[in-house]
């Protein structure tokens, strides 16, 4: 997740730095970050925590250009919200399914219990009727 957010962040910074990659290239030349040395931010997802690297990158951006930093954070915030909203919608169906199954099982058990009670009452009534009939005879 953190790695994804970092990757997303880097992409956004690149996009913000060079709005509309192709058209920007036509208008203002190549992506300025292409020539930059980003090796400092390279990391191994198996060993490093993406968010730590991302934070270092952000701090560096802030030190160079606070307004670009603020714009980048703002853009990432919207992206994260969209990502979380999509995740919420995706997970909602599982939560609904789990709750539905749970209550179907519980209601089914209670219904079976109630049906058995009715059967027991019917058997009791039948026995009573038989005894009365036998006593009358």
């Amino acid at each position, binding site marked *: 997740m953190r790695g994804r957010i970092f990757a997303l962040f880097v992409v956004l910074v690149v996009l913000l730095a060079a709005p509309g990659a192709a058209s920007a290239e036509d208008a203002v030349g190549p992506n300025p970050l292409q020539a930059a040395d980003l090796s400092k931010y390279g990391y191994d997802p198996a060993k490093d925590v993406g968010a730590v690297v991302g934070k270092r990158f952000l701090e560096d951006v802030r030190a160079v250009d606070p307004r670009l930093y603020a714009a980048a954070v703002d853009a990432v915030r919207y992206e994260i919200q969209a990502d979380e909203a999509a995740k919420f919608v995706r997970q909602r169906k599982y939560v609904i399914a789990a709750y539905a*199954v749970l209550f179907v099982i519980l209601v089914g058990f209670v219904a079976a219990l109630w049906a058995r009670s009715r059967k027991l009452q019917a*058997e009791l009534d039948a026995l009573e009727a038989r005894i009365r009939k036998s006593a009358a005879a």
Partner: protein
Amino acid sequence: MRKALFIAAAVAAAVGFVALPYWVFFRAELAHELYFNQKIFYYHVPAAFMMFLAVFVCGGASIGFLATRKPSWDDVASSAGDLAVLFGAIVLTTGPIWGKAAWGFYWDWDARLTTSLLLWMIFVAYTLVRRYGGPGSERLAAGLALFGVVDVPLVYFAVNFWKTQHPTNRVVPTLQGGMREAFLWGVLAYLGLFLVLLWARVSQVRGQRRLAAVEDLALDTGVLE
């Protein structure tokens, strides 16, 4: 006293099941990584606790029955066996749904899941023996219940003994704030429900037993032919 306990349990179940969704959806914080899917936890884990409780009640009553041969113990054991199947079914359906959302697949043959399934199958076998085993099946079923009790520590500690996909036992003790309170509401609701259902089922089983006894008595004394 028994009636007061029953009413207390019924109130706990009713209040618990009304309050639980509020706590789960409005008070419990969203979990990191598991996110909204974690809401299943508040119903899944208390159901697992009740499954264990039902197994212990069934096992304890089975020991009582085997030691004394009193039918009253057998009635409790039989009723608790049904509840072990009920709560086990809830655990084994809500768990895989949670797994699909969290792991991307419904089932994994890891130790926790497999021993849980085994425990549930033991109690399904228990109820089948009770229903279709004929005379004397109570003792066989009691032995089966004790076999099931032995499986409970295996289920619980499976996450410690083996490397499993399932979360560890550290999750519940480390719950904080609204998550902890929502979980406790879940336990209260399920415990109330467990006691109400156990009471209802035991009453029913005893009713059936007495009905059969009265029928036999009526036939033996010539009141009925």
